[in-house]
């Protein structure tokens, strides 16, 4: 493990910021899964696919969102607090610094994704069983939910680092990621914009597809994984390039 990567991991665990993100994510998952699991009409849970899309998929969705925020914060936080200056004095090779942030954020995001997928699956299952609804999701589906959630979160963390390196200012970077997840992609998935099936090629939709959500509309998990990985690579490289070309104030 490189010194730069070890330093990034140390930075992440020496403040409470990532722990705070993690806790917020878990609380939101509990809230949204219990709300849907206990509140949504039983008719919406009559197939495995619906159970995944309406209920269990929330783990992946929130893990990917929070991983994106974690990745973006790893660089915009340093710019905001000015620690980017000492960081770059130690390691003036900026691409290496950005790529170390990508790897560190991805490693932590895997933890976010595994926990989010497991909590959503576990709490969702308990919620359905408590209402006497048959859980139609099989072992393979559970595995795909949890592992897919980890993969989507890891790749979204890399995308977040790239966005953070490009945008630099913390508030617009974080608000941009949230708005994209909660609003923009929801508008574009489906044929609302007259672009047919193109919405499923977008990165948040690809994240959902990796964990097996909504297979009728979204991509197959393997293809979605490759596509989201491509997004991640492009975002990380564009971010690294932007960071190495711009002056630090």
């Amino acid at each position, binding site marked *: 493990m490189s010194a730069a990567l070890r330093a990034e991991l*140390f930075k992440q665990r*020496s*403040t409470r910021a990532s722990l705070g993100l993690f806790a917020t994510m878990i609380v939101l998952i509990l809230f949204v899964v219990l709300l849907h699991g206990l509140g949504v009409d039983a008719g919406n849970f009559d197939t495995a696919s619906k159970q995944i899309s309406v209920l269990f998929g929330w783990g992946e969705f929130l893990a990917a969102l929070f991983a994106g925020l974690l990745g973006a914060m790893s660089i915009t936080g340093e710019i905001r*607090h000015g620690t980017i200056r*000492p960081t770059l004095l*130690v*390691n003036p*090779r900026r691409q290496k610094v950005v790529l170390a942030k990508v790897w560190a954020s991805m490693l932590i995001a895997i933890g976010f994704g595994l926990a989010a997928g497991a909590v959503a699956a576990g709490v969702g299952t308990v919620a359905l069983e408590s209402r006497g609804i048959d859980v139609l999701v099989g072992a393979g589906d559970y595995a795909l939910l949890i592992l897919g959630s980890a993969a989507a979160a890891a790749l979204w963390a890399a995308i977040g680092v790239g966005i953070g390196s490009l945008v630099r200012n913390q508030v617009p970077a974080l608000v941009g990621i949230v708005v994209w997840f909660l609003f923009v992609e929801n508008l574009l998935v489906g044929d609302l914009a007259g672009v047919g099936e193109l919405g499923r090629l977008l990165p948040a939709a690809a994240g959902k597809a990796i964990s097996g959500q909504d297979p009728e509309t979204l991509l197959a998990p393997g293809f979605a994984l490759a596509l989201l990985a491509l997004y991640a690579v492009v975002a990380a490289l564009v971010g690294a390039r932007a960071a190495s070309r711009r*002056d630090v*104030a």
Partner: protein
Amino acid sequence: MSADGGAESLLDEDSARTPAPRALPRQAVVTVERLTKRYGEIVAVDDISFSLEAGTVTGFLGPNGAGKSTTLRVLLGLAEPTKGEALVFNQRYRELEQPFRRIGAVLESNDFDPGRSGRDHLRALAIAAEIPRSRVEEVLELVELAGDAHRKVRTYSLGMRQRLGLAAALLGDPELLVLDEPANGLDPVGVHWLRRFLRDFAGAGRTVLVSSHLLAEVAQAVDRVLIINSGRIVVAAPLDELTRGGQTLEEVYLDLITGSAS
């Protein structure tokens, strides 16, 4: 900051400075060659050249906005020159191997995550620079922060933050120390501490470049002066040469900066 204070400090400096003749040929630690830095229409640094020799303490003086910080950022690889070159140990900072072990720098007094402890701030840098953990404790002792190192930086006073920044710059046991406005906001005890520190550091044969607009604070600690105004170097000379005529540094400075305008 009065003219009298300045005069006193110069006397102090003369009596306190220990003669340190060095037989070794002096090596250019910093070489700035025809450096220009533009931000759009604004010319922050305009075709400046200077060099620093090993073992000297140079005061980099000038009004706010004169181009001091821009010059230091280019020198330290944080900003790209528009034209010309700024070299440290004959290389661009970004091309040095392990620059942190040769150059220590403090550019802003508050470059810390407020939610991280002072010790962890240093540890993160030490890990990145592959500097042993024991060195973190050494520099904490050196800047007299060992007792407060476990606290989050948000609880630190400005003086403590200045010292923590200095501790970070010293982690790599550098030969060259670059400090941008280190005396800003320090109380008299802090300024005294800083002066003594700079003298000790340079006394060991190492080099310091310290920018400031607080003249009395630096006059006692420097042996060379670079004065920059509107992006141009207006004076580069040994301090005792500038003040030979009985003028204080402050008088020389004011003549140069405002003299041409009045």
